[in-house]
């Protein structure tokens, strides 16, 4: 897609193409299922989640399959986005200025491209944890096939799986918060695909420049 | 067993050889464990393989299969050399002090045979195997028959100092002085130190002349199944006499029977040359009942100043009572108690001879019940070939077995099948839980069991099938007459249901009853005509009693079925349990128990009192039933071995007792990797005659048969039976061959790979079990391997029918060589070659 293709009528910019949105929602859907059933296995206090979702046995049966779907989607994301997610010099500055970001003083932030450094962290976090979850998950799926003399693998798996899951939960919460509550317009973009020029200019100025060829207003 | 299962708990020392009770008798073996747990008893296991029994042994020796006499002879030598024998015991209770005829020669003096050997006939003239002493004149042979053996002297010369060079003890000492530890190592393959450790441990019970401790010898068919099997057991008996272990709680010579009722089968004339109760069968030479009785009733033979009870002098009472039971009013004094009705046994009708006769077309048909003839006999091919020649075969079984499907055995072609004309009848029978009756266990205990489940489908009880065959044959005789109908027509058959005799009624017959009012002259106790006799002491030779088996007399009295008693109490805590079941003879648990006391009648070990002389009552009393004349005073010096005419135990077995020697001599198995180091020119048992059919072949090391092979059983399976039961099949799914890890390495065989074992007679293919439990041996300086094969599989069964086995029989490998005394085949110890498949 050339930058000019992404400029839509009525002052909109295409941020996510259909296949990107679809992949995202496959990942999101399976992740939410994994999260809910995983929480049920995590703590007796959450077992009611599994009960709502069809009972413990069904949850245990479907959880690994959902995991495979999630991993598939994450791999697809990797193939789609990994080049765009490379860390740049600007990202370092972005992290240096993270305090402004938290305080919603975005105008004091270094200009971000299509993805800001935080989004890149989210991406790489999910990729890494996804791999860890897959590997440990396979072991947990079939513990009886892990030979007794390789049992340390089982022991590692029971630790890695929840630890990796907890990391993704942290990322997930921030992701939801940012996209649904903090940056209005972001949620719509992953559903309909487009954002307003203002949105692009505000949150992803360098990306805006790439698409439109226009410089954003100079920094104060 | 001279003793019994539970009695093993009283022992201090166990020598287990030629048997693997932990494997094959796990329930009885609890008493061996009990002895270890409660008495700190020691267990020595001597076996060709390190077995389940060896796993709980305190000392293990790996022996070459079939060399047990060398080992035991070595222990006898060790005991004598180290003064570890029971001196008082052997002087007073054995024939150690008896002086032997001057004409008797040992194998060390006569080229590996005893005196009297006739090389041409391969048999002995045993006249010189006798005691010295006052003799009655030998009777001349009648009608050209060879002269019968001279009788035992009435008064035997004896030397209580044991110094006479011709006394039994000195001969024993001389004979076994050749069985040095070095010689034992050469023959058995057991390293000298290990053998000496075993001999030292076993004889340690007689250290410093102590008589308190007792040692037991436990064996099974690993001893019996050799061309000298009887003599192995003899050697054990002699060792036990020498150590004063016979008659003692925790002692004895203890045969473990391989089936629940083998003891009962033997007691009830399972052998062709005996009648129930071990009465000897008549032969064509016995012209009359009286002549027969004279021949088989011994007269006492003892030092002049001793007494001998000579219990077999009652033989005519037992025999007349047996005839009265069989023929009732048909047996009278006038017709010599129906002596003519009895078949006269003219030759060897033992198992292997029977099948040989079938092979040669002499025997035309066969009825088999409770066994799988093709599989259990040696040389399966010969057995199958024999059945092919029969006109009919009747098999009573609960499974489709190898015998009833012999014509489907592997290797029989379609064309050949068409040639086989045998009519086979397979009759569905009842399994053990589907019938009642008694089992006589190894301890001689008769224990009654009830029917647990009804027979399925058309299955019938064995006795119902046999009764119906008998009744129809009798019908035919009645209708058509015949050459000699009387033995059939006059047979007493007075069961409530003649078509299906109740086994309780049969047991009542065995116990015996009074045919007239009787009175015991000593106690004035009376029994009425028709009542059950209380025991064999009541049996008469005048036709006033009937008894089917004198040994079983007392098992079903007026007080009811004694074998069904279930009183577990044991006041003496010696494992007597006098109220549980009933054991022959007369509910005695330990045979010869008079020998558990010293000459004065006091127990050797006061903590294990079996019987003793009560001076006040002037009677023998005890925790067990005294196996002795109850009122014989110790000072009369009656011998405790009341079944021998000598009254004492036989270290030297005189005259006709054994076919192959009064002392056991070591001979090699017929197939052996070496020549006998004792006398290479007489390597094997000289009186054993091999069969000569096309199927009877022997292999030698020169032909490449250089691996010693033995067969065995597994806990998980029961003979050729449980291969039909999924539970047992799950436990051990497939046949296998046990071999040493070193041997497998040399041949490039890994565990689980298939190997072929072949003997001169046949082959067997199964997976290899490569184990450290068998080690290579040095036999007479030659590195020799030994393998073992469990024999539970055949060509019918779960694994067989699923095609998971080679469908072969282990006994395809074994030979028809038999022991000259017991006629048992040489299953344990033959030569094979082993190849990778």
């Amino acid at each position, binding site marked *: 897609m050339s930058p000019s293709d992404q400029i*839509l009528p*009525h002052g909109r910019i295409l941020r996510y193409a259909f296949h990107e949105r679809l992949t995202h929602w496959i990942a999101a859907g399976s992740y939410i299922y994994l999260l809910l059933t995983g929480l049920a*296995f995590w703590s*007796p206090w959450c*077992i009611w989640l599994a009960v709502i979702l069809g009972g*413990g*046995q069904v949850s245990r049966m479907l959880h690994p399959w959902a995991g495979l779907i999630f991993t598939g989607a994450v791999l697809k994301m990797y193939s789609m986005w990994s080049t765009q997610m490379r860390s740049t010099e600007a990202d370092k500055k972005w992290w240096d200025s993270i305090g402004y970001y*938290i305080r919603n003083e975005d105008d004091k932030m270094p200009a971000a491209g299509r993805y800001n450094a935080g989004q890149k962290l989210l991406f790489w976090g999910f990729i890494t944890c996804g791999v860890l979850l897959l590997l440990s998950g396979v072991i*947990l799926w*079939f*513990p*009886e096939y892990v030979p007794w003399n390789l*049992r340390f693998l*089982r022991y*590692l798996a*029971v*630790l890695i799986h*929840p630890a990796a899951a*907890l990391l993704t*939960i*942290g990322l997930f*919460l*921030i992701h939801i918060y940012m996209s649904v*509550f*903090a*940056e209005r*317009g972001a949620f719509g973009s992953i559903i309909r695909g*487009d954002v*307003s020029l*203002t*949105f692009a200019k*505000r*949150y992803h100025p360098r990306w805006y420049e790439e698409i439109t060829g226009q410089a954003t207003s100079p920094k104060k | 067993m001279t003793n019994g299962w539970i009695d093993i708990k009283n022992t201090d020392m166990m020598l287990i050889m030629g048997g693997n009770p*932990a494997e094959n008798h*796990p329930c009885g073996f*609890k008493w061996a*464990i*009990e002895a*270890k747990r409660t008495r*700190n008893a020691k267990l020595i296991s001597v076996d060709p393989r*390190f077995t*389940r029994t060896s*796993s*709980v042994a*305190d000392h293990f020796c790996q022996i070459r299969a079939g060399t047990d006499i060398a080992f035991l002879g070595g222990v006898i030598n060790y005991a004598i050399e180290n003064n570890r024998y029971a001196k008082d015991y052997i002087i007073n209770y054995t024939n150690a002090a008896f002086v032997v005829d001057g004409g008797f020669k040992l194998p060390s003096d006569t080229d590996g045979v005893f005196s009297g050997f006739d090389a041409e006939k391969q048999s002995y003239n045993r006249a010189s195997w006798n005691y010295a002493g006052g003799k009655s004149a030998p009777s001349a042979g009648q009608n050209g028959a060879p002269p019968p053996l001279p009788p035992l002297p009435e008064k035997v010369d004896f030397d209580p100092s044991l110094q006479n060079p011709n006394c039994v003890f000195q001969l024993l000492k001389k004979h076994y002085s050749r069985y040095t530890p070095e010689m034992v190592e050469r023959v058995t393959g057991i390293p000298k130190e290990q053998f000496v450790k075993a001999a030292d441990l076993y004889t340690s019970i007689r250290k410093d002349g102590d008589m308190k401790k007792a040692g037991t010898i436990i064996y099974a068919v690993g001893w019996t199944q050799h061309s000298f099997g009887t003599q192995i057991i003899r050697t054990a008996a002699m060792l036990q006499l020498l150590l004063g272990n016979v008659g003692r709680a925790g002692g004895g010579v203890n045969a473990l029977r391989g089936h629940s009722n083998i003891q009962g089968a033997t007691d009830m004339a399972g052998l062709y040359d005996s009648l129930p109760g071990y009465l000897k069968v008549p032969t064509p030479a016995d012209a009359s009942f009286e002549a027969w009785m004279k021949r088989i009733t011994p007269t006492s033979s003892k030092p002049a100043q001793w007494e001998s009870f000579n219990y077999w002098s009652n033989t005519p009472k037992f025999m007349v009572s047996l005839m009265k039971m069989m023929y009732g009013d048909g047996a009278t004094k006038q017709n010599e108690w129906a002596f003519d009705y009895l078949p006269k046994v003219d030759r060897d009708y033992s198992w292997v001879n029977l099948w040989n006769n079938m092979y040669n077309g002499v025997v035309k048909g066969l009825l088999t019940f409770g066994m799988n003839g093709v599989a259990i006999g040696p040389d399966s091919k010969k057995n199958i070939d024999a059945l092919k020649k029969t006109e009919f075969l009747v098999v009573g079984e609960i499974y489709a077995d190898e015998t009833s499907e012999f014509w489907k055995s592997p290797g029989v072609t379609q064309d050949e099948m068409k040639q086989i004309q045998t009519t086979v009848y397979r009759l569905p029978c009842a399994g053990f839980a589907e019938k009642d009756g008694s089992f006589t266990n190894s301890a001689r205990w008769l224990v009654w069991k009830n029917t647990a489940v009804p027979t399925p489908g058309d299955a019938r009880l064995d006795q119902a099938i046999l009764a119906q065959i008998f009744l129809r044959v009798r019908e035919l005789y009645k209708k058509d007459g015949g050459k000699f109908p009387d033995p059939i027509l006059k047979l007493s058959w007075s069961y409530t249901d003649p078509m299906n005799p109740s086994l309780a009624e049969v047991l009542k017959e065995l116990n015996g009853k009074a045919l007239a009012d009787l009175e015991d002259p000593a106690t004035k106790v009376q029994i009425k005509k028709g009542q059950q006799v209380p025991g064999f002491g009541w049996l008469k030779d005048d036709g006033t009693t009937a008894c089917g088996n004198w040994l079983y007399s007392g098992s079903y009295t007026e007080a009811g079925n004694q074998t069904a008693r279930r009183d577990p109490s044991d006041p003496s805590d010696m494992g007597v349990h006098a109220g549980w079941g009933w054991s022959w003879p007369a509910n005695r648990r330990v045979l010869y128990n008079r020998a558990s006391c010293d000459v004065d009648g006091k127990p050797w070990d006061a903590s294990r009192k079996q019987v003793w002389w009560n001076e006040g009552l002037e009677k023998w009393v005890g925790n067990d039933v005294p196996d002795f004349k109850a009122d014989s005073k110790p000072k009369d010096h009656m011998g405790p071995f009341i079944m021998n005419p000598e009254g004492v135990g036989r270290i030297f077995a005189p005259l006709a007792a054994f076919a192959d020697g009064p002392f056991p001599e070591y001979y090699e198995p017929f197939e052996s990797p070496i020549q006998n180091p004792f006398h290479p020119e007489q390597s094997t048992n000289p009186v054993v005659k091999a069969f000569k059919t096309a199927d009877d072949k022997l292999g030698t090391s020169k032909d490449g048969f250089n691996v010693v092979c033995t067969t065995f059983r597994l*806990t*998980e399976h029961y003979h050729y039976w449980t291969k039909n039961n999924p*539970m047992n099949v*799950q*436990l*051990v*799914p*497939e046949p296998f061959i046990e071999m040493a890890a070193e041997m497998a390495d040399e041949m490039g065989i890994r565990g*689980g790979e298939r190997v072929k074992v072949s003997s001169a007679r046949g082959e067997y293919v199964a*997976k*290899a*079990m*490569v*184990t450290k*439990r068998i080690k290579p041996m040095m036999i007479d300086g030659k590195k020799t391997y030994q393998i073992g094969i469990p024999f539970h599989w055949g060509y019918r069964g779960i694994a067989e029918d699923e095609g998971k086995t080679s469908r072969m029989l282990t006994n395809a490998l074994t030979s028809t060589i038999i022991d000259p005394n017991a006629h048992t085949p040489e299953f344990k110890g033959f030569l094979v070659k082993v190849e990778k498949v």
Partner: protein
Amino acid sequence: MSQATLRVQKISGHAGPVAGEDAQREFTVCKLIDTTTCIGCKACEVACMEWNDLPFGETVFDNTYQTMPETRWNYWNLILFNEHEKEDGSLMWLMRKNQCMHCAEPGCLAACPADGAIVQYANGIVDFQQANCIGCGYCITGCPFDIPKMNPKTNRVFKCTLCSDRVSEGLEPACIKSCPTGCLHFGSKDDMKDLAEKRARQLREHYDFPQAGVYDPAGVGGTGVVYVLHDATKPELYGGLPADPHVPWSVKLWKGPLKWLGNVAMVGGLIGLFVHYLRFGPKDRDDENINTEGGKS
């Protein structure tokens, strides 16, 4: 013994208190296995199959007398056969009946997330309740003895119940009942420990086993199955009996600190984000039109 001994004292995956937590333990039951008198006859294997009505499974010859390599979901009691050559060249054929050890601190129960799938009764028996099992297999990982096994068809895990059904009726477990040599005993833990120590002493004093001893590993709080071993310093010889078994550290870490840390982090994260929103609100609050503009397209 009465049904009271089957009062549940510990429950897996359970939120809130357990009914029997404060039940007074009359005594803990215990199985004693004297490996020095075991002859490997497999009567216990058969008795276990028969009493528990376990279906037959296929086995294959594997160069051993052992029925199968390890216990199965439908084969809870397996004698392990091991050949061991001693330094003096003599051989030992070690036989050890292997089954659930009924640990006082069961790793399976600790690892299990399913409410009531694993329980420990007041008498010490650790029992699986297959109706509640979700088939996650965490118990397999939690067990230091490799005992729980999954039925791949029903996706439920099974193991020896110590015949809790028999024990509650005052009977000994089926394996004990069937043992012909008396190498198996059953009773209270105290009695079995006494008996075991006595036997070990006998082996040290009267037999050639100076290292004989009792196996009752402290790492899992002691076990409801204790062994007498010829050489207690080398339990590994008996088919890999662990010298110092304990619930895997990772399971402890996971069920302990990690769980608390995770819970705090998750709840803390949620609260933090909520507070952030309260304090700072959305990033575009100074530009109310941004969304409407987008919406107009």
